[in-house]
């Protein structure tokens, strides 16, 4: 998670004022991707269109399908494109980074699910003690945990910072 504040300190060729937008970009992209993936899973499970698709890893997550994963990815890519004018990236770079961050984030979400499944809980932070009122704090940011380092190092490597 320390990669998120580290992003703030990256100096984009004299555009250092922009780095807060880079963090905004990352968070927006990852969370939109996650949200869209969730919505795609929901709609797939609600609309019973004849055939039941088998989840990729049913013992880890009953809702993870590659199709909904791709939906989330596409949504994240679109958001990345839209936000590219806020950031130091050109649209192509923004698209690539958005896809990368979203892919890392959603797979990270799956990993955290496996951890929770292993321990037999549905969310971090016990009942009634949650910080955000919607499950544990880690449930909110687990995708960011995976997306931030990948994003940070990709940006750093790409721009030679």
């Amino acid at each position, binding site marked *: 998670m320390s990669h998120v504040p580290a992003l703030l300190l990256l100096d984009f060729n004299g555009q250092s004022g922009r780095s807060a937008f880079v963090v905004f970009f990352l968070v927006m992209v990852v969370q939109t991707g996650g949200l869209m993936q969730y919505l795609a899973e929901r709609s797939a499970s609600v609309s019973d269109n004849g055939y039941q698709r088998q989840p990729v*890893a049913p013992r880890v997550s009953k809702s993870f399908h590659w199709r909904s994963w791709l939906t989330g990815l596409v949504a994240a890519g679109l958001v990345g494109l839209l936000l590219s004018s806020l950031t130091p990236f050109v649209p192509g770079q923004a698209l690539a980074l958005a896809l990368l961050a979203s892919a890392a984030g959603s797979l990270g979400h799956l*990993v955290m699910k*496996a951890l929770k499944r292993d321990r037999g809980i549905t969310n971090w932070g016990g009942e009634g003690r949650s910080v955000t009122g919607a499950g544990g704090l880690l449930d909110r940011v687990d995708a960011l945990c995976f997306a931030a380092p990948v994003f940070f*190092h990709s940006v750093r490597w790409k721009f030679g910072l």
Partner: protein
Amino acid sequence: MLAKLMAFFLLGLVRMLTGAQARWHGCPPKAEQRIYFANHQSHADLVMIWAALPEVLRSITRPIAAKDYWTKTPFKKWITTEVFNAVYVDRERVEGVDPMAPLFEALEQGDSIILFPEGTRGNAEQPQAFKAGLYNLAMKFPHVGLVPAWINNIQRVMPKGEVVPVLCSVTFGVPMRLEEGEDRSVFLNRARATVIAFTLREFITLSPTRGGDHRSLILAFFVVLSVQFYLVSARWFDLFTVFIPVYVFLAIPVISALANDPERFLERNAKLQWGIMVCVCTV
């Protein structure tokens, strides 16, 4: 000539994919006449144990192959005859023919043999009951040492449908002999127990891996290792420093989660990560 080439190729392949480690715990790899008996879980066992033997022993050791399976196609027949120099055994009884006769013949010629006394491939972690053949051999050739061998990991790390086996080893134990007046079932159980004893030890000490780790292991050993050394040789030091601690660190649990096995998830991945960090990253 072709057989030599094939043997060379197979040896290389098995060594590269599985390591084909031989652990001589109970006896040295000496060129004396022996009967090796091992657990049997896949057709690859025959190749594994053959590859684990040193060159000198390989030439005087003949594996026992099931006639119905290994002579089905010309290629299988060629490879067992020319490369492995196998002894064929008929699994189906034919009236008036002793199924053990080819084994006796091989032993009388002074060759060592590799035997899978379960008779058929087992699916469980522990071997099935041993067939009487081992007892008959021990009766008839009391001077030949019976060396138990444990072929590890083929089944456990190779779930159904996967093609590439990783991390296999063959452990050879203390040679045993038929005691004076020992009953057949007592002897067979004793032989089986020596083979099983290896399982537990291997299970506890050497391999914490499960079927779900198969792909992660492949990733770790083949992909990460080669990429890491490529990065070094290409002098991409920026990427080199973060490749394992960041990218591989995150990729391994992802692959593990996709393998659909949440059991002891944290523990298994931690072990694998730690192994990679120490063995690949720092060295």
